């Protein structure tokens, strides 16, 4: 089953919003550049997809959380609690997300979709970036391995919704990375979902409140 454009758009938009939290807070200056770049790519694809559906700002700024169709994974904070910003967690999240996006976009590009043809190249870079960091952190210090294992474990349950219909192909991408990173592949178990039906976590409404506050305070104007 192919995901709807709004699903892919909301995945990318919410991912861009989350990634923006990293601005000026990355572990290295190179990573500040890289994370902003990935956020920009996600935002760019989100805009193209939203434009293909309707008015991008209307869709981004005027819908409530129950109208969003992103999977739960992208709305999670980068750590166990709201406000957390853990780099290992972010890389595990990006590994999972980019691997899925890359497969989805590749399928769509093959079917002749122009937006996906652009997006597939970018997501290949995101996947590569996240894979490299997963390996470095998994096979780095004792502390980084422990943090990375915890991150890949904690986010894993949310990958079921993310990879609906492409699970096997996705596993074929992700498992070798975890292996190279000397990390234990998490067990399947709990499979939270609901995002595609608008049933989100408690995190999304906070994310959207911040994103939409200014836009909503000035209805109908041009920026």
């Amino acid at each position, binding site marked *: 089953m192919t995901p709807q454009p709004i699903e892919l758009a909301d995945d990318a*938009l919410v991912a*861009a*919003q989350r990634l*923006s*939290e990293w*601005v*000026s*807070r*990355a*572990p*290295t*200056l*190179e*990573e*500040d*550049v890289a994370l*902003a*770049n990935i*956020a*920009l790519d996600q*935002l*760019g694809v*989100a*805009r193209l997809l*939203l434009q293909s559906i309707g008015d*991008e*700002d209307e869709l*981004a*700024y005027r819908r409530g959380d129950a109208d969003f169709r992103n999977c739960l994974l992208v709305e999670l904070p980068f750590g166990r609690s709201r406000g957390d*910003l853990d*780099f*290992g967690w972010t890389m595990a999240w990006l590994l999972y997300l980019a691997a899925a996006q890359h497969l989805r976009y590749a399928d769509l590009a093959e079917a002749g979709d122009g937006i996906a043809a652009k997006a597939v190249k970018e997501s290949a870079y995101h996947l590569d970036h996240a894979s490299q960091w997963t*390996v*470095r*952190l998994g*096979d*780095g*210090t004792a*502390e*980084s391995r422990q*943090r990375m294992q915890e991150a890949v474990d904690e986010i894993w349950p949310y990958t079921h919704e993310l990879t609906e219909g492409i699970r096997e192909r996705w596993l074929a991408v992700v498992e070798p990375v975890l292996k190279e990173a000397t990390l234990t592949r998490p067990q399947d178990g709990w499979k939270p979902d609901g995002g595609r039906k608008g049933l989100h976590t408690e995190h999304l409404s906070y994310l959207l409140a*911040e*994103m939409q*506050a*200014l*836009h909503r305070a*000035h209805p109908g*104007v*041009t*920026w």
Partner: protein
Amino acid sequence: LEGTASFEAIVAADQKIEPRDVMPEAYRKGLIRQIAQHAHSEIIGMQPEGNWITRAPSLRRKAILLAKVQDEAGHGLYLYAAAETLGVTRDELTEALLNGRQKYSSIFNYPTLTWADMGAIGWLVDGAAIVNQVPLCRCSYGPYARAMIRVCKEESFHQRQGYQSLYVLANGSPAQRAMAQDAVDRWWYPSLAMFGPPDTESTHSAQSMEWKIKRFSNDDLRQRFVDMCVPQAEILGLTLPDPDLRWNEERGHYDFTQPDFEELMRVVKGDGPCNRQRMTHRRRAHSDGAWVREAAQAYAEKARAAKGASREEVMA
């Protein structure tokens, strides 16, 4: 020609000093200080603008702002690289920023209180930066001059975007217009202060001029900036917050009220509205990232060792 004589000949001939050339120690140290301060300013400067990325009121503006802040990180990278050619490491420079020994531009110690600040910063702060920096594209130190060419190109792109964003607000709803005017009211004098103390009180200037690092005086650049801004403000339809601003036919320049240099000194010394916040933010980002940098280094060492081992195997 050898040694300092060669250095002076190159400077006199308007040629570039390159990293391997002999140069006076004061020239080297002064350049490190200046380039480092410039690099630090790019890094700290990500914060006030980064503050509005998650709240940008349209996706297009969000993308523009995100790209701009990304460019600032990139400028930081070129500038640290330029400084490194003078024999310091990026780690040393980072340490000097974090412990407060080296400074960054005081303009970033003011808060960004509304979205209109993004426009005002683009127009005024980037505008002032460009006026300051364009002459540096011709400065005597090659790596710095080349970095500045790239930086200035991108900055002038940002400046146009900021101006355009402010123009939309100034021509928008009454609330948007008020927001734009308020932002200009708050950013005007801090922008004028970016050119530094008045010439009568400026240290280092004469030597910097002689060495062709600096090419115009603080007051000359400030005047150039004011002359540039007045007609732009008219097009925006916004008022610069200076009742004494008027054209002086005789001088061929605008007369204007000087910024409060005592305030500038207070902010430089650490007592601006956001000095502590900016430094805390930077220090926390650095310390939060320590485990990541350590892991990357440990991994790189393992990888090198493995490579060495496999080479030994091949050789055996």
